[in-house]
C-alpha cells in the first residue's frame, strides 16, 4: 500500500512538481498575459457557459455550474462564498503558511469583522440603537458601509493583537489550543451579550448601497454577481498586498522565524513583533472576509461562526498547500465548490468530502500545490525522529 502510494506520489511530483519552474522560466510578458487572462476569466466565471450579451452557450462548461443540477445552489452565490473563503485562506496562509503559527480559532476574526459591520452599520443593531439614543439621532441613522470597512479592519486587527500578545509566547500545539478557545470565546460572547444581539443575531446589515432593500440596484438580494465581483476585487488587491509582504523583509523574517526562531533572534529579527504582525494581518484579512459575508447576508447570528468553520478554514490551507498563495486559493475554492457541485449525493456529501480530504492527505500530504520550501521542511521533520533513533 505505502509502496504504491509512494509511486503515485513520485509520478505526481513529476507532473506537477515542474509547474512552478516552468512558470518562472516563461518570459515576463507571457506571465503577465497569462495572469491577465486568468483574472479576466475569474471575472467571467459567473456567466460560465454563456456568452454575455448573446443567447449563445459554450457547450460543456455548463457542467461545472452548481445550478446545472436539480436543486443546485445559485452559481454566483457559490462563487461569492468561494471568493470569501479564498480571502480567508489568503489571510490564514499568512499565519499558518508564512509565519508557521497554527491558528485554530480563525473564525473568531471572521466573526469580529462580520459583527463590526453589523453592530455599527445596521440601524437595527443594539450598538447603533444606543448611539441614536445618546445623540438623539433618527431611528434609521447608522454608520455608512464605507466607514464600516476601516472600523471592521481595525477591530479585527486589534483582536489579532489582543489574542497574539499573550499567546504568541507559546509555541506549536499550545498556541493551537489557545486559539481554538479564542474562536469559541467570540461566538459565546456574541451569543450572550445584549449589545451583540444575543442568539437572535443582528438584521439589517448594510452593503455598499446602504441597508438591504429591494430598491438597491447593483448590490441587491437576488443578483449575486456584483457581490462576487466585489469580493473577487478585494481578493485580488489583498493577494497583491500579501505578495508584497512575502517578498520583503517581513516575509524573510517570517521564513527565518519558521526555520529557526532562536537564530533569527540572534540575527536581529524580533520574533515576537513579526509573529504579532502575522497574526494581525491574518486577522484583518479574515475580518474583511467576515464583513463581506455579513453585508451580503444582511443578517448574522452567532451560531454561524462555529468551530467547524475554523476547521474548514485550516483544511483549506492544508489541502491547498500551506505557504503557497495559489495553492491555498485553490484549496479554498475546492472546499467551497465541491460540496455544492455534488449536492446530488445529499447525505453522502459529508462522507465524500471526508474521503476526499483523506485521499488528498495520503497522496499529497503537502497539499495540492505545495510551497516548495514548506514541503522540504515537512520532509525534514518527518526524517528527524529516524535520525534520532
Amino acid at each position, binding site marked *: 500500500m505505502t509502496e504504491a502510494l509512494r509511486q503515485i506520489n513520485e509520478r505526481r511530483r513529476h507532473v506537477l512538481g515542474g509547474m512552478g519552474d516552468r512558470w518562472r522560466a516563461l518570459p515576463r510578458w507571457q506571465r503577465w498575459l497569462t495572469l491577465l487572462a486568468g483574472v479576466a476569466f475569474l471575472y467571467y466565471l459567473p456567466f460560465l457557459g454563456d456568452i454575455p450579451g448573446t443567447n449563445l452557450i459554450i457547450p460543456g462548461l455548463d457542467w461545472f455550474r452548481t445550478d446545472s443540477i436539480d436543486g443546485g445552489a445559485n452559481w454566483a452565490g457559490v462563487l461569492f462564498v468561494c471568493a470569501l473563503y479564498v480571502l480567508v485562506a489568503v489571510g490564514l496562509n499568512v499565519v499558518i503558511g508564512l509565519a508557521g503559527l497554527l491558528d485554530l480559532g480563525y473564525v473568531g476574526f471572521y466573526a469580529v469583522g462580520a459583527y463590526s459591520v453589523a453592530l455599527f452599520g445596521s440601524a437595527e443593531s443594539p450598538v447603533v440603537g444606543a448611539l441614536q439614543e445618546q445623540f438623539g439621532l433618527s431611528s434609521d441613522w447608522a454608520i455608512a458601509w464605507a466607514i464600516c470597512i476601516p472600523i471592521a479592519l481595525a477591530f479585527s486587527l486589534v483582536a489579532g493583537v489582543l489574542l497574539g500578545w499573550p499567546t504568541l509566547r507559546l509555541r506549536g500545539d499550545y498556541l493551537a489550543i489557545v486559539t481554538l478557545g479564542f474562536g469559541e470565546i467570540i461566538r459565546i460572547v456574541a451569543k450572550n451579550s445584549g449589545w451583540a444581539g444575543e442568539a437572535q443575531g443582528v438584521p439589517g446589515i448594510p452593503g455598499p448601497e446602504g441597508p438591504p432593500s429591494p430598491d438597491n440596484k447593483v448590490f441587491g438580494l437576488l443578483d449575486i454577481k456584483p457581490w462576487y465581483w466585489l469580493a473577487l476585487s478585494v481578493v485580488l488587491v489583498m493577494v497583491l*498586498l500579501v505578495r*508584497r*509582504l512575502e517578498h*520583503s*523583509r*517581513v516575509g*524573510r*523574517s517570517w*521564513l*527565518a522565524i519558521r*526555520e*529557526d526562531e*532562536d*537564530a*533569527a*533572534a*540572534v*540575527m*536581529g*529579527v*524580533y*520574533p515576537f513583533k513579526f509573529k504579532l*504582525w502575522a497574526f494581525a*494581518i491574518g486577522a484583518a484579512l479574515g475580518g474583511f472576509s467576515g464583513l463581506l459575508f455579513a453585508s451580503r447576508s444582511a443578517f448574522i447570528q452567532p451560531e454561524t461562526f462555529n468551530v467547524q468553520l475554523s476547521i474548514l478554514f485550516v483544511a483549506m490551507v492544508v489541502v491547498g498547500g500551506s505557504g503557497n498563495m495559489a495553492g491555498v486559493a485553490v484549496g479554498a475554492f475546492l472546499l467551497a465548490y465541491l460540496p455544492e457541485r455534488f449536492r446530488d449525493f445529499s447525505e453522502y456529501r459529508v462522507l465524500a468530502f471526508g474521503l476526499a480530504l483523506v485521499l488528498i492527505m495520503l497522496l499529497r500530504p503537502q497539499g495540492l500545490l505545495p510551497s516548495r*520550501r514548506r514541503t*522540504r*521542511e515537512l520532509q*525534514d521533520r518527518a526524517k528527524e525522529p529516524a535520525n534520532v533513533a
Partner: protein
Amino acid sequence: MLPKQKTSPEDAAKPEVLLEVDGVTLRFGGVVALDDLSFNLYKGEILGLIGPNGAGKTTCFNAMTGVYRPTSGAVRFDGQQVSGRKPHRINQMGIARTFQNIRLFPEMTALENVLVGADSQHRTSVVGALFRLYRVKPKPEELPTVDSANGLVRLWQQVRRSSAQVFGISRHTLEERAGERKAYELLSFVGIDDRANDLARNLPYGYQRRLEIARALATEPKLLCLDEPAAGFNPAEKEELLELIRKIRDRGFTVLLIEHDMRLVMGVTDRIVVLEFGKKIAEGAPAEVRDNPKVIAAYLGEPADAA
C-alpha cells in the same frame, strides 16, 4: 614563526574597551560554570577564549551574548549592560555571533540568509513594505537604467526613470537593493559567492560555516563572536579560515574567537584568555600564554590536544 599582527598606532596607544566582563559568576544549581570571571575586550583586536572541554567557554560566550544571565557580576558592551536584554536587542547593540553547531536557515538561499542579517539594519517594516509610501530621493546611480534596444521597452524604462526622479523611490525598494548588494559583497568577501542562489542546506560544510560568518557580518556588528568556527575543518580549510578572520579584523571588526584548536588560536589572536573550570587562569599575548606553566598543565600538556 607567525606574522606579527599589525595594530594601528592609536589603538596601541590607548585601547578602547569594547566589552567588559566584570566579575561574572554563573551557577547552574550547585555547579559553578563561571567563577568570578573578569576580562576586557578591546576595540579592533582578536581575542581568543580557550580552555579544555568543559572549561566554560561556551557558557561564557552565552553569558556575553545574553543567552544566560549571570548569577552575579555584569557584562557591559560599549558601557551598556548586556545581560537581561532580548537577543535581537543585543544584536542591535552591535554583537553578532555564529553557532558552534551551524544554525542557518536551511530552506533559504545563501543570499537570503545574508539578507536576513542585513535586514536588521533596515527600517522598513510591514506598513512600509505594504504601501511603499515613504519615498526617498535616489542617488543618480540608484535610478533605473535606460539601456534596452527595443523601442517599447526603452520607453517604459524611460517612464520608470523619470517617475523615480520626480516621485523618488520607496525606502523599501532602496533598502531591498542595498541589502542585496551588501549580501553579494559579503558572500564574495567570505568567498562563497559562486553558490549565492543555492539553498543553505545544499551547501558544503565549509561553505555553511562561512555563510554563518557572512550572515553575522551583515548585521554590521561592532563585535563578531565566533564559536568554534573551525570545528570539523581540515588543516587547509583552517588555514583559509585564519586568513578570513584576519580579513574581518582588517575591515574594522573586533573578533572574539572561541576555539580549542591551539594552532588556530595562536596563529590569529592578539590576546588570549584561558579558562579552566570556569576560572581565568591566564591572559596575555599568545606567546606568553603558550609558555605559561599553568596553561601547559591545564591544557597544552595533554597529548589529546597535541594531535
